[in-house]
């Protein structure tokens, strides 16, 4: 009888332990989706926007069939999450400026009669679009949702799906791979409203600048014309107090 009792006791104990283990495992499994996607996205933005007010230079090299075929240089001044001013520096674009205030964008052409208002579709033109250069704070433009964890090469990544908060965002949907260790961007896929996969990006290199780890090189792959890609290199990134009036669209004195 005592043998039966002890066997029953061991069985009950084992069942209890099994239940506890199961709950513990389920609890752990449930905690993964509870990952704060918004906080993760904000952390990832910090790798592209080191300060609340800063200036950086962006060199874009466009490649056709693997060969570099043109180079462009921009000076980007950014303040907060919604004000960006871009000065075009290459000889063929000199005198051109681009201003982005929230969802509103203007281009100032030296030879046109007025600042030209840019539609979201015009923002997408080009290998690296105006939006790729001027709009890098994804947390203010997109609502993130955690999708899954995935290994990209040797890197453990969290995968987020970003959905545009407004129609004025550069892309309507982004699938975003972030390094699981520190949330730095690793890879992205960009989609239009129609669902068309238009571009992909790999975030290739980071550097320590002014005590911060910042993106140094990004490659954009054209998913429509597969033989075309663009390399964006960031340099001379420096914090700078930028006056609000630099971002006033009616300002005629652009430099």
């Amino acid at each position, binding site marked *: 009888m005592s043998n039966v009792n002890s066997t029953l006791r061991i069985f009950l104990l084992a069942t209890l332990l099994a239940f506890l283990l199961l709950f513990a495992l389920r609890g752990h499994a449930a905690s993964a989706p509870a990952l704060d996607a918004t906080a993760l996205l904000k952390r990832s933005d910090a790798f592209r926007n080191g300060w609340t007010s800063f*200036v950086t230079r962006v060199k874009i090299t466009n490649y*056709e069939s693997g060969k570099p*075929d*043109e*180079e462009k240089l921009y000076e980007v001044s950014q303040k907060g999450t919604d004000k960006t001013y871009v000065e075009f520096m*290459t*000889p*063929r674009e*000199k*005198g051109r400026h681009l201003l982005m*205030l929230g*969802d*509103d964008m203007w281009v100032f*052409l*030296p*030879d*046109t*009669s*007025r*600042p*030209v*208002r*840019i*539609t*979201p*579709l*015009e923002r997408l*033109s*080009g*290998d690296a679009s105006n939006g790729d250069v001027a709009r890098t704070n994804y947390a203010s433009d997109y609502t993130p949702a955690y999708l899954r964890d995935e290994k990209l090469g040797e890197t453990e990544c969290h995968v987020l799906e970003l959905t545009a908060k407004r*129609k*004025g965002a550069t892309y309507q949907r982004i699938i975003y791979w972030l390094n699981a260790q520190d949330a730095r961007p690793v890879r992205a896929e960009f989609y*239009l*409203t*129609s669902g068309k996969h238009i571009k992909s990006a790999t975030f290739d290199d980071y*550097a*320590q*600048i*002014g*005590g911060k780890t910042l993106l140094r090189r990004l490659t954009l792959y054209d998913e429509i*014309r597969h033989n*075309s890609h663009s390399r964006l290199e960031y340099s*001379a*990134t*420096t*914090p*700078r107090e*930028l*006056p*609000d*009036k*630099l971002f*006033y*669209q*009616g*300002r*005629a*004195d652009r*430099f």
Partner: protein
Amino acid sequence: MIRVFAAALILVSGACVAIGQDDPAPEQSAFSTRYSLAVIDDATFYGGLSSPLPKVLNQVLVEPTFSLKYRDRWSFSGSLVGAETTFNDTVAHARVKEIYTAFSAGDFDFMAGRKMLRWGTGYAFTSAGVLDPPREPTDPGDRLNLNEGRDMVKADWMRGQHALTFAWSTGELARKGMTVPDTAAIRYNLLLRGFDTSLIAGNDSGSDAFGAITFTRVVGQAWELHGEGTWREKGAILLGAKYTTTAGITFIGEFYTPPNIPYYRSITVSPSAGRQHYGFLNAGKTRLRELPGWKEWDVSGSVVTNFDDRSYVIVGDVNRWFGNHLSSYVHLEIPRGHRGSEYSRAPYTTATSVGIRFHL
């Protein structure tokens, strides 16, 4: 033993410091400069000449531009044009397109000198751009960069989404042959819910006062709307829209109706003709990157028409880049209309401009 330990500690901490060092953020220079130089050779060939004029107009233009800025406080900018024109004779001349100094303090900007302002929102026409260079609907992009600024003093106040500008321009310093009035104007600009709206009021010397309202607004993914309403003796209205397709082709359309008063009247329109109605339609695409080998090409075509006398001009533009410094273009104008109509008064049936530009 302690000495060895201390030495090891120093070495390790030194190594840690070395590993921890990073690129410092670059220092901002107090002075910054910008410059550019454009050299243009433009030849215009006239076909079907109705008067005894040379068939070719050749222009060589040298256009240096420079700016010097001290911090975000003070700046000095200039833009000049040197031109040699060969038509009946060869004539050389130089012009100052812009030369001004600007000072910035707090929410205020002050400027004095010759400067191009762009208050009008119209692409091919404007009634509200009271201090703007004149619009040329057959060449709104000012192909040869010959537009000149007005001599003025200007003060701007900007805070948040509000901006107030006061400008006083004098015609005393305009070059000979130009009739420019003294103008005092004030503009209030507000960006609210995507509407970029301006109210303009002012007075030209020896003429009536004027008032205007302008707006631009982007709607959805592909549309931009713009418009102007101006009162100067009588009302002038401009309504325009821009539409971009997913393929990157942009259409711009404008309807413009100015009263037939001396301020708005084209020299080819009779003073007795009454209110005029104009239309402009442009379709264009920059960088034909979808076609292999055509990435460096830009093309556009326009029609400008006077609805009242049914005359029109067909305009075609093709531009091609060769690297970062050299480009070439063809600009074609074909005016049509019955005898005496506005656009038929050009003394040619076709004007084809071929040019090459060097940029530095």
